[in-house]
């Protein structure tokens, strides 16, 4: 069987996906990126292939996206992660969409029309406010395991109001709330709200809303909060952290379709 693979070398994590010709996910992997992009990409692909029970020679195309996309010799072509997330979101939800990707280092809002064409996109500025890096920094300051944040926020009966834009200022605000005796769960829910506010400041939201990325994958409560905030349903693809890898693999599949 002729397969396609996509590798998304992000700032924090490297993801790989192996798809069959119909676009079905056969295998996926998520690893820490570390400092060697080529190695991380190769390992992620090996893992995804193993999970798919496939051999490298079955791959017709390997495309890459993400910050490290140009550093991966095994990829024959590259696309931006913006193209990749849009392709994946539209694959799972083929309609006019606003895609919100919360990544480790940056956020993206991508508008896609009913035909799957991208109309517009916005990336956050250089500042890490509202990204996965923000939550990691805050978890560290609160001495919390990252994976405990979702359940803590979900349990919260109250919510700490955090207003600052900047990650460092937010940390100072959090210290103030700790002094005031705010429970940990309220603080974490306040941090989730802060992520949502930073994202919604970036652009307007139109059409159906799809959220992708690692933060969403690990914190489904954040998606529920986003839906409440927007007053509408928020969709997530299966394995949202793999969305970039799946998307760029879909683009690889399309690029290698025989001409009709």
């Amino acid at each position, binding site marked *: 069987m002729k397969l396609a693979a996509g590798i998304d070398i992000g700032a924090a994590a490297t993801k790989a996906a192996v798809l069959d010709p119909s676009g079905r996910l056969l295998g996926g992997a998520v690893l820490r990126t570390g400092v060697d992009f080529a190695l991380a990409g190769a390992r992620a692909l090996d893992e995804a292939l193993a999970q798919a029970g496939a051999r490298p020679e079955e791959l017709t195309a390997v495309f890459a996206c993400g910050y490290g996309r140009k550093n991966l010799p095994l990829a024959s072509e590259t696309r931006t992660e913006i193209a990749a997330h849009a392709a994946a979101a539209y694959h799972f939800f083929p309609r006019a969409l606003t895609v919100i990707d919360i990544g480790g280092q940056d956020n993206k809002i991508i508008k896609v029309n009913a035909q799957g064409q*991208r*109309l517009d996109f916005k990336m956050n500025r250089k500042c890490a406010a509202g990204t996965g890096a923000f939550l990691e920094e805050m978890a560290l300051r609160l001495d919390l395991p990252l994976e405990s944040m979702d359940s803590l926020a979900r349990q919260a009966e109250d919510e700490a109001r955090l207003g600052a834009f900047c990650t460092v200022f937010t940390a100072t605000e959090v210290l103030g709330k700790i002094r005031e005796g705010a429970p940990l769960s309220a603080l974490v829910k306040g941090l989730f709200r802060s992520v949502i506010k930073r994202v919604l400041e970036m652009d307007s939201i139109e059409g159906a809303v799809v959220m992708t990325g690692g933060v969403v994958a690990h914190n489904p409560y954040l998606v529920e909060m986003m839906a409440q905030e927007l007053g509408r349903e928020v969709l997530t693809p299966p394995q949202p952290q793999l969305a970039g890898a799946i998307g760029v693999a879909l683009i690889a599949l399309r690029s290698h379709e025989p001409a009709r």
Partner: protein
Amino acid sequence: MPDAPPPIKATKKMKELMAGHFLGLDQAAREGRPKVAWCTSVGPAELLHAMGFAVYYPENHGALLGATRMATEVIPTANAAGYSPDICSYLTADVGAFLKGVTPLTQAYGIATVPKADVLVFNTNQCRDVEDWFAFYARHWNVPIVGVRSHRGLGEVKSHHVADVVAQFKDLIPTLERVSGNKFDLDRLRETVRLSKECTLRWRRVLELASRTPSPMTFFDHTIHMAPAVVLRGLPEAVEYYDLLLAEMDQRIADGVAAVPGERHRLYWEGMPVWGRLRMLSDLLSEAKAAVVASTYCNSWIFDAFDERDPFESMARAYLELFIVRDDEYKERYIHQWVERFGVKGVIFHDAKTCPNNSNNRYAMPQRLARNLGLSTLVLNGDLNDLRLFSDEQAKTNLEAFVEQMEELAA
């Protein structure tokens, strides 16, 4: 892949002219004659030339600091001296370099320092920062600072705006006479205005040639070749230079030479250049077969109003009619005209952190242009000079994704 275009031959002549300009200023400053006037880039240069000054443009020096990437090294010195990292990074780079005793002119021309001003003449038509910038040097050297406080945010330029600026120009004359030791001569002003007009007509033609498909030059070429229009307008050398450049570009067009080989997309650049990353941005867009064919920045040295028959009024009108002096409605009409004429499908707005007056994305103009004209728009966060405010990776991803999006929409 099609061949890269040959280098522009006129560049050699431009470098000679720029060397002559700076060496002449250095000599004037050392010998005390002619007197040196510092002038804002869209300030009353014609009046200063007519009064016999050697005219120096600190913004050009600011751009050199940016292009040589010295700016980011020297800006912190100005920050530490009290000039905020949030204000104009031409100012902070220039003041920082002065405080550190360095200048890119040393490496380029063997000149030790910027030419000491005998008088500083500003025009706030671009921003207030230019006045604060010149005030630093006025205090440092204890020399006079005079200038024009311009109207801003204009829709229509009305006769009372023009009359006010004319009066302000005339108010400068006693100080300029005292410092230069020369009497004001209306005929000399007429001749300078005439030469500026000749220069500006040619510069406009250079820019308009980019409406051809494929374009013989891009915005990135324009940012280099605009130098004579900025620092030598009012002098015959600028006119001669653009005749030379135009002849070469006419030949490029005749030979079908494209500035971006295989040009597929035509873009408009709105806002300041990122001086320290011109090459990176040019290469990236060229690789994506995207040609930036027009920009408001390079158009800022088109002064259609100059008329030697009425030098004061036409100068006032020229310096008030500029894009940067106008309201958003005018700016949108202006961009609309240029994008239509140049076959542009996408506009890149550079949001320069330290240059609010020349960052036109901040009041939803990209959204309005996208909605009203069906253009793709992109906002690139960065700065003209302070590379601490620019992320290479974000810029690359943004630009690449923007061109991908245009490809998709064109498909």
